[in-house]
């Protein structure tokens, strides 16, 4: 053991290595104003467009529409950013041919992903703060009107987003850089059955069954119920959390299996070429 480093398996070494991933991504964000702009641009555009749609619908006497649609836009952003930010953090290492440098460090796959997740939390918190403020200033909608349920709603969506990011990362590890489109689009595969902007009950019966297996659908249904005056549906949220556990377990298995496969087939080496 080199004296200048903490013992490799110590908690301090693990913390330091995770901090290295976060430090690197924070520095990259600081050096790239376009990245900060990108974090805010699309969420704000989406908020403005949907905000005025809701005002139009409200003018036509559609009840509850402002809070429900704006709440949906804001919570959708939590899921969308959780998935994209982690996947993009990984892709930036691919784009800069830095992946091999990372894989010859003592950083474990778990520490690497933890670092990406922590950094995504920072970006999501920043982006969400701006959106929540804008929603309040422009439309008088306070996200906190969802109440205590907001915490589990967001937690379920964050965890689901991270699980989807792991699937996207696994796809790139398995199929190469060409599969990066999955990182951008995977979350949208879930959007139709997640009931983001409409109740799951409007879906055909088969899709309703599918929706019941998507944690996000329980969150958006729950949000609409709470904004309609009902109590927080803890039982449904517990089901969503249980589904999250299954999604994360599958995503972790996929990630470790594809990493093992990439090492076995020499694909990991090719990320340095």
């Amino acid at each position, binding site marked *: 053991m080199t004296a200048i480093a903490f013992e490799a398996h110590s908690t301090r070494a693990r913390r330091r290595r995770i901090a290295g991933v976060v430090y690197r991504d924070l520095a990259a964000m600081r050096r790239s104003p376009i990245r900060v702009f990108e974090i805010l641009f699309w969420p704000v555009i989406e908020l403005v467009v949907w905000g005025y749609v809701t005002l139009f619908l409200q003018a036509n006497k559609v009840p509850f529409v402002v809070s429900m649609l704006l709440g949906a836009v804001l919570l959708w952003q939590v899921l969308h950013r959780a998935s994209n930010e982690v996947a993009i953090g990984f892709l930036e290492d691919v784009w800069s041919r830095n992946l091999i*440098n990372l894989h010859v460090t*003592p950083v474990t796959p778990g520490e690497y992903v933890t670092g990406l997740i922590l950094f995504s939390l920072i970006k999501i918190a920043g982006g969400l703060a701006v959106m929540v403020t804008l929603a309040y200033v422009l439309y008088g909608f306070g996200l906190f009107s969802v109440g205590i349920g907001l915490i589990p709603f967001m937690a379920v969506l964050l965890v689901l987003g991270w699980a989807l990011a792991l699937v996207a990362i696994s796809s790139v590890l398995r199929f190469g850089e060409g599969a990066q489109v999955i990182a951008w689009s995977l979350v949208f595969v879930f959007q139709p059955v997640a009931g983001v902007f409409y109740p799951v009950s409007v879906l055909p019966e088969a899709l309703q069954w599918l929706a019941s297996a998507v944690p996000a659908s329980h969150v958006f249904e729950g949000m609409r119920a709470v904004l309609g005056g009902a109590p927080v549906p803890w039982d449904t949220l517990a089901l969503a959390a249980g589904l999250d556990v299954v999604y994360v377990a599958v995503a972790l298995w996929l990630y470790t299996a594809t990493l093992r496969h990439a090492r076995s087939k020499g694909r990991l080496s090719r990320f340095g070429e």
Partner: protein
Amino acid sequence: MAILEAQSLTKRFGPVQAVDGVDLTVGEGEITGLLGPNGAGKSTTLHMLLGLVTPDSGRVSMFGLDLQRHRTEVLSRVNFSASYLGLPGVLHVREVLHSFARLYGLRDPRKRVAEVVELLEIGPLLKRRTSDLSSGQHTRVQLAKALLNDPELLVLDEPTAALDPDAGERIRNLLVSVARETGTALLITSHNMLEVERMCDTIHFLSAGRIVASGSAAELAAHFGVVDLEEVFLKVAREGVPA
């Protein structure tokens, strides 16, 4: 004491037998060269030693620890630099070094970064983006990164490929002095025969995934009945290995 022991490493990619029964031992402070024509299996061998590629069979152990089972501990004592690797392009050199110092779990990243910056004479580059560096500067930063954790084994794939003769000579001298003074073992691939001849204590020639000859530069030249390593290389690459 052996820092690195690789036994019977094999790797096949589809129809290609990339590495075929390679045995390799590197001792403390020893400088070992891995030579061979393109496609001989040098990079695949290095990548197996670093855990980037899983061998089909065989075993890699470092510091007496099995690489597969003790990956984190082993990799914290090893480092790697290659001319073909990139670094996060938007980051300043200082930020790259600080992030890798943390990734290696260093106790005092600031102090160690200052030390390698002085050693590699890259102080003027610290506030430059890595994407703005010349290839020679990039190589020096990669080497600084590779020395951050004061590695006991430093694996170098074409370490001076992008450097002019003067810069190359200075880097070679630096690497040799690091090996001699700190006991760091070096494992090097290079197509620069003069470099290998000057630096390496032991040289292994790879051809078609096998080590076909080993020894010092003088021993290899004598073995093949030629005057220098360049001629050994040409003989092995063009004529194969005499039985």
